[in-house]
């Protein structure tokens, strides 16, 4: 295995046409010139595409032809339709959509993982995301009993239990209140759960895609608990309950509930999407997604944990001694390189921006280290701002691929000092049947053939 990798920045190649033809050899460039009447260009193009078909690099086209003053990139020389015609009017799509060229990036199910679509999960395409915000339409989904588009005028939110004044709020009531907006990650407790025993899935979409990060807007739960006159002497836990068929229920510690939990209706500047709990869901920063109860209809204040279905039969972590950890909730420090990542292929040797995300349910990300040699040595990556509490943090680091084998890994440290561990270190303590809370370091093998694959090193 080659371990000779430099982190030296090699950006010089990016500006040079001949070095990175993948940036301009678009589909239009490949098809349009066929209709071109200017024969010298056609010849140039045909020569280039012949080279392509023959399997030699298209690099030859630009490199050779730049000496020829009349040659050039057809995408520059031949004005395309969009430069010579009239475009679409405003509001042609009253609710905007991504470009059709981006349709590869979609939420997807992992074949064989679950048996029915309404009790299943769709994974977010992390491999294509930039920054830290998950586009609303690509937020991962997890439903236990299907999703609904609930009429908000019919939705009610009740607080009862150990309160002086049990109350009912309408959505009008909640939207009239003062609000807060906060950015937080939302990760399913079972994210990366398929990988406890061995490598099971090929890409970061399936290894880590039960993860999203949005700006949520709503009313801090403590204001509402206060409004109902919570009995602070007796109260120790709250139960959150959904309005849908599953009526999802989860216990939350009172300390958490009073800390930063939000009764949220907004996501990324608009109302929550139906798949994410429209019109109301709980936001429980740092805690696994199942506690972010969707279609939230009720909070009960109580003095003991509730041992609900999804904290007794599921979302319990099986330890090697046969005991299940119950109420495991916090999503611990974790990171993953999203590009280059499993299932991708490097188009060329040379410079790559290795990029990924890091997060911790215990606080902020303090540091991310990246290794390209399977963990023999590490370099500190650049953290992009903002760096927020219980929120994704984007990291980047320069890397030059020399064409040999490499194993890319990232390792995050959070503001409490907890450092992300290897899968081997995790298994030593928790075995391999936990299903939940796998926050191990992820390894991506870059093979000499340019393909990146999911591996575990031990």
């Amino acid at each position, binding site marked *: 295995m080659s371990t000779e990798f430099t982190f030296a920045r090699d950006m010089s190649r990016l500006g040079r046409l001949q070095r990175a033809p*993948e940036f301009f050899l678009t589909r239009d460039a490949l098809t349009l010139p066929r209709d071109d009447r200017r024969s010298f260009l056609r010849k140039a193009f045909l020569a280039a595409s012949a080279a392509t078909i023959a399997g030699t690099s298209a690099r030859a086209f630009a490199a050779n032809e730049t000496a020829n003053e009349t040659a050039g990139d057809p995408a520059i020389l031949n004005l395309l339709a969009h430069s010579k015609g009239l475009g679409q009017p405003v509001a042609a799509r009253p609710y905007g959509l991504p470009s059709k060229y981006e349709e590869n*990036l979609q939420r997807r199910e992992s074949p064989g993982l679950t048996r*029915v679509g309404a009790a299943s999960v769709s994974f977010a395409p992390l491999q*294509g995301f930039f920054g830290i915000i998950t586009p609303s339409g690509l937020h991962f989904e997890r439903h236990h009993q299907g999703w609904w588009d609930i009429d908000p005028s019919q939705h009610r939110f009740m607080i009862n239990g150990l309160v002086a*004044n*049990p109350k009912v709020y309408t959505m009008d009531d909640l939207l009239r209140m*003062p609000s807060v907006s906060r950015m937080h990650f939302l990760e399913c407790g079972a994210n990366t759960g398929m990988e406890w025993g061995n490598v099971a899935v090929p890409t970061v979409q399936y290894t880590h895609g039960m993860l999203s990060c949005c700006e949520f807007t709503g009313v801090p739960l403590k204001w509402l608990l206060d409004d109902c006159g919570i009995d*602070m002497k007796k109260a120790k836990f709250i139960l959150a309950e959904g309005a849908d068929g599953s009526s999802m229920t989860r216990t939350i510690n009172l300390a958490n509930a009073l800390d930063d939990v939000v009764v949220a209706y907004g996501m990324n500047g608009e109302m929550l999407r139906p798949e994410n709990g429209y019109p109301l869901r709980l936001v429980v920063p740092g805690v696994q997604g199942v506690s972010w109860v969707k279609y939230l209809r009720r909070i009960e204040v109580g003095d003991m944990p*509730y041992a609900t279905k999804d904290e007794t039969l599921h979302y319990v972590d099986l330890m090697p001694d046969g005991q299940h950890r119950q109420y495991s909730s916090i999503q611990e420090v974790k990171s993953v390189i999203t590009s280059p990542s499993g299932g991708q292929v490097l188009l060329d040797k040379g410079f790559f921006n290795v990029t990924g995300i890091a997060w911790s349910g215990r606080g902020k990300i303090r540091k991310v280290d990246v290794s390209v040699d399977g963990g023999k040595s590490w370099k500190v990556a650049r953290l992009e701002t903002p760096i927020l509490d219980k929120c994704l943090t984007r990291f980047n680091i320069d890397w030059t691929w020399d064409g040999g084998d490499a194993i890319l890994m990232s390792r995050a440290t959070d503001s409490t000092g907890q450092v992300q561990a290897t899968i081997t270190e995790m298994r030593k303590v928790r075995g391999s049947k936990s299903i939940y809370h796998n926050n191990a370091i992820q390894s991506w093998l870059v093979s000499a053939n340019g393909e990146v694959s999911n591996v575990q090193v031990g």
Partner: protein
Amino acid sequence: MFKSVDVFATLRPVLSPLPSRERARVRGGVRNGIGRVSSSISPLTPTLPCRPRSRLHALAAPAAARMRAETPPTPRKGRGGSWLVASALFLIAGIGFAEPNIKNLGRPATPAEIKAWDIDVRPDFAGLPKGSGTVARGQEVWESKCENCHGAFGESNEVFTPVIGHTTKDDIRTGHVAALRSDTVPQRTTLMKLSELSVLWDYINRAMPWNAPKSLSTDDVYAVVAYVLNLGGVVPNDYVLSDKNMQATQNQLPNRNGKTREHGLWELGGKPDVQGSTCMTNCAPKVTISSRLPDFARNAHGDISAQNRLLGGLRGVDTLRPAPTEFVPLAARVSKGATGSTSTATTAVDPAKLAAQHACLTCHGIANKIVGPALIDVHKKYAAQKSDAAKLLVVRIKSGGSGAWGSIPMPAQDHVPDADIRAIAEWIAAGKFQ
């Protein structure tokens, strides 16, 4: 948490100097005031056990705007007379705050409303309604409403992990399911994990049958819980489960002692049990790959090249072909990537996709029965009708109903666009399900 100092820094530009007693009033008032100014008018205020207290941070921006944003009401244990609130109201109203009032939003919940929604049953059985059910009645409920999905013996893997299996008489004695410590059981069954009987009752009551939750009577919930326990060998055939013997039955659960809260993943500030290394150089003498996907699984998640963006220094791997043995020049990949994506964009409506999109496939497998019949079987039944099959199917799909395949009704699908129903009906009639 409470930071009081900043209140004055903020208010001073707006309010003229006040004697210190007045300041105290302002402080108390602001705590209660922002976002709930007129709460002081509410007759409820003085009787509340807890009062809001604001948390103000160092503020630099214009006072009024900042205060609105940064003074959420929060619970506090301290006391404050309503006269403080009243004076704050006056002051704040005087300087132009007009904040929404939480106290006047929402309304008391009525006992009937609480009863309708407060259905949860706790581990100490608080919340459990009175009632009872026999194993025999439970069997009737199970066979008519549960067996379809969970199998006659709760063993089915078809829609979800099995409910019953892999618990022993010895487990009932120890309260620990031994199979949880072995590697012999591929899947954990519900009964293997069940540590609180309350949840079996609560969950079936709130969420099952999956396609018609909250439709069972209280006695039928007792009955079907008794039957599930009977299938698992926990209670005898003549058992009658009731609110009286839930605790006694709880004491028989095979995994009643199988849970622990000894971990750092719950409490705020809980202690982590795994800590990674901070080593930066010479950390691992040798790196060995211990696990990777086998070659035959290369396309188990479809064509990965169609799951990646077509820009930048990377593309998705073409998993429909074997891995190249050496580095493939980029141009070959670029042309494939660029054209590869559009073919999928222009494909005509795929009826299988429509069936998935409209949730038909939640209840109908192509080749297997789920809640409704397998689509292959529907096709066979209608194949005899030849030309009319699609038309008949359109009607049946739109109107739903029961009786043709069993007692479970199919919900009317009139929310699905006609064109989609037609496409799906033609697809079923044609019987070509590839």
